[in-house]
């Protein structure tokens, strides 16, 4: 996915640059058509992979173990593992105002059958909703009325295997709703499937529809709208921030009150889609069903939002399905190893009643889970599964060597006041009177690594020279030295909490037998069946008193 994003991206931007490096997050918008072509090309060209386009109508299970699937085309495929990633298509209904139609996406039909089959296995099922904004004609926008937002000058690729981004970047356009927009939208509330109760599914809190935003933040006078061209050649512009299921006529009138869109031509209205999902507490951390061997679930069917969350689960479910077939133990990322770990752990323990989105605020170890060290955190794991090529891992090792040498150099090398004071003064930093190590100087907020490298004796040292050709390594060195104290404390925190993670709960532990755990706690524990005390403590509805009781039971 990262590779395809890099190949087809038309707008790259590092978000949250105003915050610290742990919060920076790379965003890329791809050419929609091109992305989908490139993805299909790679999948179809993948060795040892057969692609069949069909519907699953039945899954065969013997002794709680999956044995085969049957397609609508009448094909029976024997298999030991299946990953269900049905997105928003199971029993999907699309809503625009009072008008509804079946379908999981514009011009794509819904899938029935499978839901009932899975439910008949005893799996619990629920309804969720998500939405999409209207699409408009790019030629009908008055761009002068919008704020142009260019991509980053020096875009950072998603994949560590991409050396650089060569695509020319196009701008996005920022505009805002206003009170006029809001009052028109409110006229449609009576017809909104959200408010008339016709949509039963719960919508996302984080990418809410525009009507949700008005309802939840009545005090806000305006909301951000991004106009995003869908590609270099495409005439279609995605009105990001204006997701809605209000009647088409209301959408039309409301959108034309927005600066830049007064004469806009709406190509197709926004709509909400409602679909079946399977509450994820029924899964193990490997994303395998707790009840059926070989049955895996990934993506929106687990109650997450699409895109990144779905892709991450697809990767993990795929790896684990393959490992299971090979008879190997599952691959599980921990909360302190990756956002993927946070995502899956949250899904299983906390459940979700709205499409789950991953957020910085959800990751308690966020200072360690940075995009700049993702390669060091995860690439070796991918390499072990044969998912990362040799030369990438070699480059990673070289990069880590450069980082290590530079950090050591900065830690031990000190400078005389006369040498470094001019640089400090230029940066508005207090001058020094005695020799000081470079590491200490770099910890000053106003001093950057380039400031230090402008001192000849530092910049010309071998350790630092090596960074000049490797910008990512240089950034890492700077971050890890600057924030060393915080990073250490975060690691201590992890150590501290590890103890509870290491207290295992036996597979066959009967939570209901522990009467001194609260009734709700027992129910939740029995539902999720945590494997460690640490996991138990993260289950919503389980109190700290419950955990104390459980701990004493487990320590027998």
């Amino acid at each position: 996915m990262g590779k395809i994003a890099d190949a087809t991206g038309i707008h790259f931007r590092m978000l949250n640059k105003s915050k610290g490096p742990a919060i920076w997050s790379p965003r890329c918008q791809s050419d929609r058509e091109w992305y989908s072509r490139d993805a299909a090309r790679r999948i179809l060209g993948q060795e040892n992979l057969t692609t069949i386009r069909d519907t699953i109508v039945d899954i065969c299970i013997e002794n709680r173990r999956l044995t085969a699937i049957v397609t609508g085309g009448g094909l029976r495929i024997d298999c030991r593992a299946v990953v269900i990633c049905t997105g928003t298509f199971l029993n999907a209904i699309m809503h625009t105002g009072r008008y509804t139609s079946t379908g999981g996406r514009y011009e794509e039909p819904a899938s029935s059958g499978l839901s009932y089959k899975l439910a008949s296995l005893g799996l619990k099922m629920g309804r969720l909703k998500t939405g999409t904004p209207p699409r408009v004609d790019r030629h009908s926008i008055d761009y002068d009325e919008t704020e142009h937002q260019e991509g980053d000058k020096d875009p950072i690729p998603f994949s560590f295997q991409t050396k650089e981004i060569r695509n020319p970047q196009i701008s996005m356009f920022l505009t805002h709703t206003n009170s006029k927009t809001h009052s028109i939208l409110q006229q449609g509330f009576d017809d909104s499937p959200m408010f008339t109760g016709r949509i039963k599914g719960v919508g996302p809190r984080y990418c809410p529809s525009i009507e949700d935003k008005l309802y939840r933040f009545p005090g806000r006078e305006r909301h951000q709208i991004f106009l995003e061209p869908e590609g270099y050649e495409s005439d279609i512009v995605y009105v990001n921030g204006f997701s809605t299921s209000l009647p088409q006529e209301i959408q039309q009138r409301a959108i034309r009150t927005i600066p830049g869109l007064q004469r806009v031509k709406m190509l197709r209205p926004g709509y909400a889609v409602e679909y079946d999902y399977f509450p994820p507490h029924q899964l193990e951390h490997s994303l395998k069903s707790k009840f059926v061997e070989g049955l895996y679930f990934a993506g929106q069917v687990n109650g997450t939002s699409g895109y990144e969350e779905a892709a991450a689960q697809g990767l993990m479910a795929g790896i684990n399905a393959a490992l299971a077939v090979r008879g190997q133990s599952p691959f599980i990322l921990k909360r302190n190893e990756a956002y993927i770990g946070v995502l899956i752990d949250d899904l299983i323990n906390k459940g979700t009643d709205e499409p789950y989105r991953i957020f910085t605020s959800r990751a308690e170890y966020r200072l360690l889970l940075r995009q700049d060290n993702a390669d060091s955190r995860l690439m070796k794991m991918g390499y072990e599964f044969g998912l990362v090529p040799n030369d990438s891992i070699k480059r990673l090792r070289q990069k880590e060597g450069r980082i290590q040498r530079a950090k050591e150099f900065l830690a031990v090398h000190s400078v005389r006041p006369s040498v470094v004071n001019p640089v400090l003064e230029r940066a508005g930093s207090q001058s020094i009177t005695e020799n000081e190590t470079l590491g200490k100087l770099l910890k000053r907020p106003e001093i950057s690594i380039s400031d230090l490298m402008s001192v000849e004796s530092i910049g010309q040292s071998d350790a630092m020279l090596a960074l000049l050709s490797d910008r990512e390594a240089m950034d890492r060195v700077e971050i890890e030295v600057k924030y060393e104290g915080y990073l250490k404390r975060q690691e201590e925190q992890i150590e501290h909490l590890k103890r509870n993670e290491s207290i295992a709960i036996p597979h066959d532990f009967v939570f209901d037998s522990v009467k001194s755990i609260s009734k709700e706690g027992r129910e939740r524990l029995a539902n999720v069946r945590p494997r460690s005390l640490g996991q138990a403590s993260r289950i919503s509805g389980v109190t700290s008193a419950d955990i104390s009781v459980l701990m004493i039971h487990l320590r027998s």
Partner: protein
Amino acid sequence: MARVYHDDTIVARATPLGEGALAVIRVSGSNAIAAVDVLFRGKSSLSEAAGYTAHYGRLINLKGDHIDEIIATVFRKPLSYTGEDSVEISCHGGIYISQLVLDTIVSSGVRQAEPGEFTKRAFLNGRIDLSQAEAVAGLISARSEASRRISLNQLEGKFSQKIAEIRGRLLDVCSLIELELDFSEEGIALLPREEVLGLINLLQNEIEQMIDSYRVGKIYRDGLSVAIVGKPNAGKSSIFNALLAENRAIVTDIPGTTRDSLEENVLIDGIWFRLHDTAGLRETNDPAEIEGVARARSALKMADVMLLVVDSFLEREREGTLALLEEAQRPDRVIVAYNKIDLCEPKRIETGLLKMIASHVDEVLVSAKTGFGVSTLRQKLLSMVANDGLEASGLQVMNVRHRDALCRALTALKSAFNTVENGVSGEFAALDIRMAIDSLAEIVGEISSDELLNNIFGKFCIGK
């Protein structure tokens, strides 16, 4: 104590071992009422009794022999100390008879409780939190009114509520900071920086106050130690005896009589003072006295208060007195007692003695012999507590575990404050605030390890 918690039925003597009018045997667990009922012969059966009712009857053993006449008080879960079904048996208070009652209960299949097991069950059943459990221990060991009051407040949950309140406010700040991270691209600032700083500062002050209260809380629990020091034959032992109002130390007019340091506790207005009578400080060649002097100096080093006794009659002693003041651990906790005041002429006292030393030192004129000034001396000792400027209002930290956790929380908050003040991005402050929150959670047992639990409940006596 690393034992599985079942609700099996346990029994223990709840009153101390010894002769008394009554002894109370406590039984708790799912089978408590039935187990006692089997051995009970009264007007009605205990199994049918409602909670909070007392029943007179005879206790028999399994063979049917009459053991004792008892009152059985029945408690129905969850309305009991442990939160389980319980029976409290009041029997006759002899050592032998109460042991026999206990053995009889055990013989009907009830297990002897471990130290603190009743309280541990109360904790595990959610009746009390960890700090309340500790308060039970504090209440039992309370030796003074002030200490009892503080423990009772803690047991009633006032301390836990305060911790929960601070923690709740920290969680609010932290969640806002974290939420802001998610919206940073939209430029939504949920909490202005000044407000964050103000809030952290406020909570920092509150935690600091609680930490400060530990010193006072500790005094209410453990009392203050007072080293009575001075030159030989200044009358230290006489003052020691006068404060105790008994002849505890051997008093002679031979300098150097006291060789060993004597220690005795005295309760003054609800506060315990641990008095150390020490050997007079002087150069000597007597090996026993040398050791005595060494012990005196070490007592002085450990003491909270230095009570310096000066012989008012002998003017030449004063030089040496000044030198001894240098050795005070806390200059604000020094009392100078001019002893043998009965031997001096009144005029000389006023002009010659007082104001001799620095003004911040408390001075008292005493005659251990006549009792003159002893009550003033007691008041001076009490004022040493007030020197810390804190009242026993009820939220004192009495427990070193609580103090340590509060100190960790404070350190983390200080770091958070600096982080925010230096304009560093919110995620760093969030880390520090989280650490503070975790430290506070440890106090009430929300984040607890089993070692911690065992440690705390292990401190109890059996039957609690």
